[in-house]
């Protein structure tokens, strides 16, 4: 199964408007499988969230996660619900520094950041990592000073081996000014051989709608420990950033093929019953290859619910494209992306994990 994660959220513990309980309810109400608690420069919400989730627990406390059932907030506009009615918390923090925001996930204890050195930021990344956290850059191209000092990533990183992920979409930031350069930066690093995962986040400070926004997806098991699954996904760069469908790939060396399939997630806001022409773009160092996907009737996603909507966990797949490996002209890494209607950024549906061809 694939799990939908919301990896960037704030509460009243910093400058958000929802309490921990309200945030958990809000996530549950939209069918989120797991959400991160990433308040600015504080971990004061961790214990509150653990206790809150334990009070209503139907799951089992396991390491850095709790998976529990919480009340469903009314009016959140999603009828899908999540897997087994449980929502898990990923404990983290947004290190909000003078020179950029660093998201830490699976953070078990506070790591001081105040002595951040703009010229040697790796020290902070490594210090958080040494405590077992996953460390990434949030909204790298946000508007910074003089309006929001520190929001733009201005650290002079030279060793990208200390970066686990980059938030390529910060959902409510401007698409072309902020998110597009973030996506391009991540692509450039990945195609240069840096094993960095892509994530996204709502950067939720209040009740903003999830519909039509990107979420991060990872592979997991219904009873899986989300902290472990997230760590495995980030470390293997197996993360999808999607507004609905997931683009899956498989390298078939025996037959010399790169095979793609499209899976629907039922994410709120994406009309999976409508099938516009899909396009798959493969970005490589030398350029991009674009293929229009032929979706025969028999390969379209089938609905298994009476209301024409699949249950949230009913992922279905069909082979969408088979591409001879020789068409890649010896490229070692490609980044697949799925679009609808055309290949403009406005129509980008899913950024998939990079595919290692060799």
């Amino acid at each position: 199964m694939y799990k939908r994660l919301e990896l960037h959220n704030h509460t009243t513990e910093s400058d958000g408007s929802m309490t921990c309980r309200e945030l958990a309810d809000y996530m549950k109400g939209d069918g989120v499988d797991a959400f991160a608690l990433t308040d600015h420069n504080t971990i004061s919400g961790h214990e509150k969230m653990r206790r809150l989730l334990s009070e209503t627990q139907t799951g089992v406390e396991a390491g850095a996660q709790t998976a529990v059932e919480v009340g469903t907030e009314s009016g959140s506009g999603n009828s899908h619900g999540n897997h087994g009615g449980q929502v898990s918390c990923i404990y983290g923090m947004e290190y909000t520094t003078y020179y950029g925001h660093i998201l830490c996930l699976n953070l078990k204890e506070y790591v001081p950041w105040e002595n951040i050195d703009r010229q040697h930021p790796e020290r902070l990344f490594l210090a958080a990592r040494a405590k077992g956290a996953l460390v990434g850059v949030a909204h790298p191209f946000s508007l910074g000073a003089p309006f929001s000092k520190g929001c733009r990533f201005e650290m002079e990183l030279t060793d990208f081996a200390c970066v686990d992920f980059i938030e390529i979409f910060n959902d409510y930031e401007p698409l072309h000014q902020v998110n597009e350069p973030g996506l391009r930066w991540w692509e450039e690093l990945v195609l240069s051989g840096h094993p960095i995962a892509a994530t996204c986040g709502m950067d939720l400070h209040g009740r903003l709608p999830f519909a039509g926004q990107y979420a991060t997806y990872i592979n997991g098991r219904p009873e899986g420990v989300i902290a472990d699954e997230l760590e495995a996904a980030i470390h293997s760069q197996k993360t999808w950033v999607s507004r609905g469908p997931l683009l899956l790939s498989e390298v078939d060396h025996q037959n010399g093929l790169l095979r793609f399939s499209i899976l629907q997630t039922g994410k709120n806001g994406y009309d999976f019953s409508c099938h516009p022409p899909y396009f798959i773009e493969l970005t490589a160092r030398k350029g991009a290859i674009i293929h229009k996907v032929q979706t025969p009737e028999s390969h379209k996603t089938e609905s298994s619910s009476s209301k024409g909507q699949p249950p949230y966990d009913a992922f279905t797949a069909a082979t969408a494209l088979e591409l001879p490996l020789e068409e890649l002209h010896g490229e070692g890494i490609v980044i697949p992306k799925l679009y609808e209607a055309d290949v403009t950024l406005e129509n980008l549906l899913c950024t998939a994990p990079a595919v290692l061809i060799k």
Partner: protein
Amino acid sequence: MKEMQEGSLVDGLVDGSVDGSVELGAATDGMKTDLKQLYHADGQLNRGFTGQISYTVCLERPYEALLIRFSFNKQHHERVTKELRDEITNQLLQGGHAIPTVCELDQMILSGTKTEIHTLASLNDVFIGGIHRQLTTREMYFSYDKATEGCIPQPCIKGVLKVTVLVFQVIEDGTDYQLQVFVR
């Protein structure tokens, strides 16, 4: 201190129960009068400063409650000058952003640019709280079962307290700040 925004002492308390069932402003005057000032410091920041100032307070005996109060003034520009317009325009250009009209620019300067200072506290080198909200007056209250949002209740308040003033941006010279530490 002129222009300081006066907030209620111990505002924004949250108890140790799940998700903070104590509403903002629920603190009592009794808490306020019980507290005595242990430390006071003030200073002035120059425009352009980024960094932190730390104050270390040795607590000579255990306390059951701790309140840290921090305030500063000149959060926003009071008027727009030609020099300010030019400076902000240059910064926008350097950042690759579109240049707004003069009217929009003035509005951005008056409401969008700000002095931003946050606070962090540790006890015996362990993090106990951070307040990251755009406030000119903030309080961090700790007791064994209550703490301001952003802070962690402390079963035993003793040892060495460090308060760090995190200065993200200062937009006006002569920005005054004041730090007070109260205990019970």
